[in-house]
């Protein structure tokens, strides 16, 4: 990748990190649990920037939150969020964005594989987040999944559909990214 392309990717990675932070503020009232859009932007980061730069974008988002910038859901921040019961979900964003990015790159942006990768990445976030919640709060598996997974699945399905629609619309405009 040329220096010019690297600068371009750097700018977009920073903006995607900022968009992810903005997504934490946007709460859409769907069903019993309002959904926040930060994980939709995590998926979009992977689709748009690929595995390496996607990982950098999400990594810097988490780093900003760890150092206290109010970028997590509810306008919170601080390293304490990583040690709390919901810390696993935040850390799960890293493998999730990498997974979406690498699948997008290796399958030449095939729509079927990209949607499958987003579903897999969402499950990956739960795969790390739910056991973390279970251990941190000493819950049974059923309770941990009841509190930390089932109520959000509908919202996740909508976010995956929305991310797919957005990426289809945005890619032709942004052209050269992740290629």
């Amino acid at each position, binding site marked *: 990748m040329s220096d010019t392309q*690297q*600068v371009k990717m750097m700018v977009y990675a920073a*903006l995607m990190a900022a*968009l992810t932070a903005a997504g934490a503020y946007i709460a*859409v009232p769907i069903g019993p649990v309002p959904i926040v859009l930060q994980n939709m932007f995590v998926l979009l980061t992977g689709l748009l920037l690929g595995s390496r730069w996607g990982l950098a974008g999400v990594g810097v988002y988490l780093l*900003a939150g760890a150092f206290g910038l109010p970028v997590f859901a509810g306008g919170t921040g601080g390293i*304490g969020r990583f*040690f709390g019961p919901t810390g696993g979900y935040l850390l799960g964003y890293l493998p999730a964005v990498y997974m979406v990015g690498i699948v997008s790159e290796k399958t030449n942006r095939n729509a079927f594989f990209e949607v499958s990768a987003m579903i897999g990445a969402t499950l990956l976030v739960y795969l790390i987040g739910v056991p973390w919640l279970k251990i941190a*709060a000493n819950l049974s598996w059923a309770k941990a999944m009841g509190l930390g997974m089932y109520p959000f699945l509908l919202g996740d399905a909508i976010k995956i559909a929305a991310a797919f629609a957005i990426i289809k619309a945005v890619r032709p405009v942004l052209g050269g990214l992740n290629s």
Partner: protein
Amino acid sequence: MDAEPFASGRSWVHRVDARLRIIAALVYSVILAVSNEFATLMPGLIISVLLTLMARLDAIAVSKRLLTILGFIALIWVMLPLTYNGDSYIQLGPLAISAEGVGLSARISLKTMAISMSFMALIATMSTATLGHALSRLGVSQRLVILLLMTYRYLFVLENEYHRLRRAARVRGFKPGTDLHTYRTYAYLVGMLFIRAAQRAERVYQAMRCRGFKGRFFTIADFPASPNNFMFSLLMAIFAAGLILMEFNW
């Protein structure tokens, strides 16, 4: 969003080398995070309160931040005592409250409050620009630091954009509900946010190319040695050692 309410101040904590404060905050929070004894967590909270007092932070601003954090902790207090699988229970009317659940909730609350307050005192007392340059001097990847600084910059730009779009929707009489109109409006809002962000990224990229950006931000900030640094390091080392000793009941 005021992300730096504590950055400007004249306390001695503000004058300590930013690199030392970053290292101290990380070490201190890891010690608290892995501690389990109340004998460690209680003094930990007291030390954090002392640090915020030494940093002369605005009590109202600290309280506001703590209230947001307390919102999350309140959920734990509602959930854990009722769902924790423990041995001893306290009967409160029809509810069986787990004593271990209460203990765990208290531990999580103490840890969260102590770590958050220490970060307010040690990290939030420097500007994000200083944080970036200090991280860079600590050997963190230059590229990651630049990304952090740029993200910080765009955070406010996008927040303003988001509020502008929301205001516009409100002026048009939009009230969020659980109907298709609401979802369509949110979809347009997110779409616009994304497009504006992409346009801005393109402009920033062109501007950086025009200026011959070579992957490095320069700064005139330096971190001179001072007696403050020595005092601070000594104090934090004593605090850390004390907490470790208490955790192991020595």
